[in-house]
């Protein structure tokens, strides 16, 4: 190395900010090498794409619901009356160079954003990475998911096409169904029966300002905390609760992570260019009278849609008041699901009396109860998701919606426990096999001495850690 590390600019900065020590520490920060730690990064990078493409889109979008007559280059809709919002999206899609590409990239990035968050969450759950000291980040992560859902809905709704208008009306009914405050909420925030003239401007302001701001702040905390606490490590040689093993931020991890960033960009660009998404000109502008087609929300709302279909038509009359049927599947159920996600780490901690710090992950088979609960949960959501397309299934199979719904109603109660028990048995068997093939380790201090000669013993030791604590 030359005697002048970092060049003139770095020195200029250092003279003003005293950076050398800090940057050295940052450069040496250790990140574990495992593909599953990249899932959160995929979400992060798709969020960056969302911000970039979204800024571009915002320069063309007009949230007005004033009626205009279309005369753009999409001939099939020439002369059709539509909202200014829909017209602006049409203009963006057909008359702005690369406009359609950017719009489709935005939509695809949104889907990937949410999918990545979900898979990331599943990874955290099935490896028990939410345990102490990472509960705060779990809470932040679940909140991020919630906001991602919300912003996905807002974004989907503001295009002003027939499907989003239909979705908006269902959302209105859901909000209206909330006991006591529902009518107030709908009138204050949506301006009464949707789509009112204030609905789209408000959704637009939520979509481009409020929610992204909250997501950015939460993201900063999420990353800051992971930086402070380091990642977890998968069990393996030299991985203990007191150390972090992996590659350093500079240069190896930075190069890989940046590479991943570009791969995500490439994937989104490819999808945005090749795979059509949300073709609003096919749906046509929103028209309150037009028969709503079998509207489907974006995939991540599929489970709520399914719950709304499966839930029987039961009203709750409380004296002069009414809790309508949509409240239970569309408000109560998601609330319970998120509440369960929020409290899970604390419940586990409470049940296991677990006050330890955990920096080494548990593999799914090492924690049969946890894994089976998680699988049951996902199967539950999956059945609901399938139910969200029961009319499609009915058409495809030639069965009747009513019978399919009956089967699914049964499945939604039966499948999760069955899956849970099955997974429990599989995990327990895998665990038994593993213990059989790895005889119990000698006491710890002996192992530490042996560590220098035989690294496989170390593996046994870390594998045994979880058994002493709690095999939840």
């Amino acid at each position, binding site marked *: 190395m030359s005697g002048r590390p970092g060049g003139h600019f770095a020195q200029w900065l250092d003279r003003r900010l005293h950076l050398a020590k800090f940057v050295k520490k940052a450069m040496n920060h250790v990140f574990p090498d495992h593909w599953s730690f990249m899932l959160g990064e995929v979400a992060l990078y798709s969020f960056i794409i969302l911000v970039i493409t979204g800024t571009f889109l915002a320069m063309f979008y007009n949230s007005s619901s004033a009626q205009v007559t279309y005369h753009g280059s999409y001939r099939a809709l020439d002369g059709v009356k539509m909202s200014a919002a829909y017209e602006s999206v049409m203009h963006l899609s057909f008359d702005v160079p*690369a406009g359609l*590409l950017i719009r*489709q990239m935005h939509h695809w990035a949104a889907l990937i954003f949410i999918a990545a968050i979900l898979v990331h969450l599943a990874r955290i759950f099935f490896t028990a990475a939410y345990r102490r000291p990472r509960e705060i980040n779990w809470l932040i992560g679940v909140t991020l998911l919630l906001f991602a859902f919300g912003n996905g809905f807002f974004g989907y709704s503001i295009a002003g096409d027939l499907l989003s208008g239909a979705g908006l009306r269902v959302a209105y009914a859901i909000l209206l169904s909330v006991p006591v405050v529902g009518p107030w909420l709908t009138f204050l925030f949506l301006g009464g029966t949707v789509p009112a003239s204030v609905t789209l401007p408000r959704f637009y302001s939520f979509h481009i300002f409020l929610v992204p701001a909250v997501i950015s702040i939460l993201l900063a905390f999420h990353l800051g905390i992971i930086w402070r606490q380091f990642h977890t490590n998968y069990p393996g040689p030299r991985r203990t609760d007191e150390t972090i093993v992996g590659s350093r931020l500079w*240069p190896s991890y930075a190069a890989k992570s940046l590479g991943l960033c570009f791969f995500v960009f*490439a994937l989104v660009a490819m999808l945005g260019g090749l795979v059509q998404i949300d073709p609003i000109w096919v749906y046509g502008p929103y028209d309150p009278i037009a028969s709503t087609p079998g509207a489907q929300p974006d995939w991540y709302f599929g489970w709520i849609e399914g719950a709304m279909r499966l839930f029987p038509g039961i*009203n709750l009359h409380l004296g*002069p008041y009414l809790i309508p049927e949509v409240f239970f599947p569309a408000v109560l159920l998601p609330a319970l699901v998120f509440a369960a996600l929020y409290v899970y780490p604390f419940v586990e901690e409470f049940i296991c009396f677990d006050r330890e710090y955990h920096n080494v992950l548990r593999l799914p088979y090492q924690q049969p109860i946890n894994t089976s609960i998680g699988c049951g949960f996902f199967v539950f959501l999956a059945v609901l998701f399938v139910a969200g397309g029961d009319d499609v299934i009915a058409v495809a199979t030639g069965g009747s919606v009513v019978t399919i719904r009956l089967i699914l109603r049964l499945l939604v109660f039966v499948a999760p426990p069955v899956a849970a028990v099955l997974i429990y048995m599989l995990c327990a068997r895998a665990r038994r096999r593993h213990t059989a093939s790895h005889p119990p380790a000698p006491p710890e201090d002996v192992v530490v001495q042996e560590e*220098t000669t035989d690294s496989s013993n170390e593996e046994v030791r870390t594998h045994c850690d979880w058994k002493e604590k709690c095999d939840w």
Partner: protein
Amino acid sequence: MTENGEQNNAPQESEPVADRNERNPKRIGQLIVLVVLGWELCKLVARRAVAKAFAGGAAVSGETAAEYPETAAERPKTAADCPETATEHFGSAENTGRAADRNLDPQRDTTTHQQWGMLLVVCASAIALAGGVGFLLIYWTGGNNLLLGVTLAVSFGGLGSALVLYSHWLMSRKEATEPREEMPSGTVEREDFAENFQESEEDIHRRSLLKWIAVPTAGMIAAMVVSLFRSLGRPPDPSLFSAVWTRGQRLMTLDGRPVNVNALELGSTTIVFPEDSIGDEKAQTVVVRVNEQFLQLPKERANWAPMGYVAYSRVCTHAGCDVGLFEKTTNLLMCPCHQSTFDVLKAAQPTSGPAARPLPQLPLYADADGNLRAGGGFSEPPGPGFWGMP
């Protein structure tokens, strides 16, 4: 240099860009000179870069070559998960950094390996560049969205591959181990903090005053902020409970024609609105003509359906979609959103699906001209349910 000066002045001239070239053929010559100069510059920079890179590679290989004799004896041990390096990490990691884990991977530090790596990285970067150039070309020549997406993806994919290949081939893959920070602060730190806190506490005189100020102020600010929400909209009003139908209004189709008692055949439907608010979403009503004998309306609605014309709100009571489908053979109205069905003959009671409440019925009568008119408002508030719905 003079060319450059003139180029800079060019934008200040007021003539349109297009004919500037035509008037000054000299400029084309200047452009060519500039392009050639630029090309030469690029070549120079590229040559320098390549020379530097190879020199660096040579230096590294020299370094490793120099080190090999020393490390040769240890090499069998340092392969992969060598415990010795591990302990070395472990011990010296505290005051760490780079120096502590400077174990070179013999497999990765040969010149051939690095040259292969360079080749791959250069290829990937070339693909990235090609993609970028393709994107620009396509953009400036019309901008087909599909091709734009593909070239963009090629460009980004090339970049990503270049980086990953770089880290894989040209960076040593040392595994680093660091101690984690102890999570709770140590007792010394905590006591220190407590002491400090205590001291600063003593600097505050009249603490209770602070509380007296803080609590009401915070409350007031909260009240002000919450009040502002009121500006967002109006309180829920009677429009929740009723649609605009009143007694005597004619039933009008969307194109503004009244519906005559002879207009519909048995088993057909039409969408109607009150005559003074055609197109009103909430008031939209579906009129079905069915065989009078099969109607099973409740007693008090016996005269709501003249000549088998029944009218129901077209807004689904489940979640507010348009109940857009009518099945003639079963006399069911069906909502396409979640497939609730309502029996037209039995006052639109839900027969299957998630809806719990019947579609509100509109009483009808035929006037002297034989046009259908509303006999009053809907039997219940139309649309999805809410707290306080009767």
